[in-house]
């Protein structure tokens, strides 16, 4: 596809008239695994939510493959933060994954056998097929995260937006997510992840957006991931962070 999967123009978002994102410009090319990296309160999650129209923009616009989001919903998959829902909800893993098909189904129509099979297939891709009938509160944190990923897969999208998929997951899940991301890239799909772990970012992703209220720098990982740029993003405090044993900014 010739047009960019995600292009953000002069996006400004404010909560209570306090700017969270300020005049952000951003282009993500097709087929990359992009990380959005930045300090606490830099507006990383807000950038994703504003892209999806979940929070109103005070100014600016978002284009998905050249069109506004409202017209391109079916091309976008979304993985919210795991902590954003109540996992004691009475439903099974398979059921949650099927929710990924609701957008295609539209109003009133119910999911049927086709949706069920698609959901099962998606669960297989995150090695969760054995847990399909399990109630979601009985899954571990990592397994819940994989269910969320499978739900996004069920959306069968071209562009995936993920909000901190690596937070609080076990090593197995981390491995499974990375494999999945590589799979998606191999299929020519584009992934944008909010990511908080500075150590693993250059290893997992090939594209990076350094964000702190505005775009500090964005581009291929190899070119952008420099101590100077990180210092600019983290307000000069990056060096102290880097020296600390766990170079992790709690998001």
């Amino acid at each position, binding site marked *: 596809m010739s047009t960019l999967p995600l292009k953000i123009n002069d996006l400004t978002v404010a909560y209570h008239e306090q700017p969270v994102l300020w005049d952000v410009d951003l282009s993500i090319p097709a087929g990359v695994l992009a990380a959005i990296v930045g300090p606490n309160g830099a507006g990383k999650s807000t950038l994703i939510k504003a892209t999806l129209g979940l929070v109103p923009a005070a100014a600016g616009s978002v284009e998905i493959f050249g069109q506004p989001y409202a017209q391109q919903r079916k091309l976008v998959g979304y993985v919210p933060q795991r902590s954003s829902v109540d996992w004691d909800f009475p439903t099974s893993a398979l*059921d949650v994954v099927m929710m990924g098909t609701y957008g295609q189904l539209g*109003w009133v129509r119910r999911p049927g056998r086709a949706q069920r099979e698609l959901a099962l297939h998606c669960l297989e891709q995150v090695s969760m097929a054995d847990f399909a009938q399990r109630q979601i509160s009985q899954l571990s944190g990592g397994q819940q995260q994989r269910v969320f990923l499978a739900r996004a897969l069920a959306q069968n999208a071209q562009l995936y937006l993920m909000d901190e998929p690596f937070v609080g997951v076990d090593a197995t899940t981390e491995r499974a997510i990375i494999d999945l991301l590589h799979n998606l890239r191999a299929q020519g799909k584009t992934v944008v992840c909010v990511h908080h772990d500075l150590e693993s970012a250059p290893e997992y992703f090939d594209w990076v957006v350094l964000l702190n209220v505005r775009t500090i720098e964005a581009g291929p990982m190899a070119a952008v991931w420099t101590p100077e740029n990180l210092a600019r993003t983290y307000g000069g405090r990056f060096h102290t962070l880097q020296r600390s044993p766990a170079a992790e900014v709690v998001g």
Partner: protein
Amino acid sequence: MKLLLELFTDYTLRNVALGAALLGIVSGVLGCFAVLRRQGLLGDALSHAALPGICVAFVLTGSKAPLVLLAGAGLAGWVGTLLINRIVRDTRISEDSALGIVLSTFFGLGIVLLTWISKHNNANQAGLDRYLFGQAATLVASNVVTMAVLGGVALLVVLLLYKEFKLLTFDPAFAASLGFNTNRLSIGLTTLIVVAVVIGLQTVGVVLMAAMLIGPAVAARQWTNRLSMMIALAGLIGALAGVSGALISVSDHHLPTGPMIILSLTVLVLVSLFFAPARGLAWAWLRQRRQRRAMRAGRWQSKLKQGGQS
């Protein structure tokens, strides 16, 4: 046994039982969504807010026809919800305070109107104050038909929009990202809850209606991990509580219907909480005790072993 036989022959008894069952089903089904969205007490505020609506409808039309009064109740309940939403959204007052404010001031207004009507309308308000605690014995066939139509429409909407309501309840942000208008869905769901409250006013009364929404859902949740099953069970439990409470109340005219239904419901809730197969508290306690005993035994064994070695 005699009561059960009369259920099919006695006119009043049949109406009462049917009405209470209808109420139980509708409020049980809708209560599931309210409870899962952590809005259980909204029903309490709504039902209290309905009282002035009943009174105003009576003053304006002079009619005591349930349909007229219930329309007023629904309208007032709606206004109350809007106020609560506005207060929570636009001020720093928390949700539970907003509920308390609307609940108590609307109810106060209802009481002012009730006392005013009783003094200015030739003491003709006898029909109105039964909405406080409900009086199922006064249900006639036309009331039951009204309830059935209202409840039927509400249930039909739930059936049609089951998928949407489920998604809205579980993950509203995801629902919005898929293009569902979550604002409108949410208002729609609240409107259905208003309908359930309105259906219950005649039978249970405004004071205890909250439990009719919360109780069946909480009880049903203990027995199943599937939403569809929970909804079906909640309807069943609501109906069971409604019928048994109404029958107890009819059998002894001293006993008001609302409290009897709520007491039956409470028994069902407690039984579910303690003895439901997987989540039952009784089983959890038993497991814990067994574990503790096993641990103590283990400690004894190792102590004995140590003793033997030294």
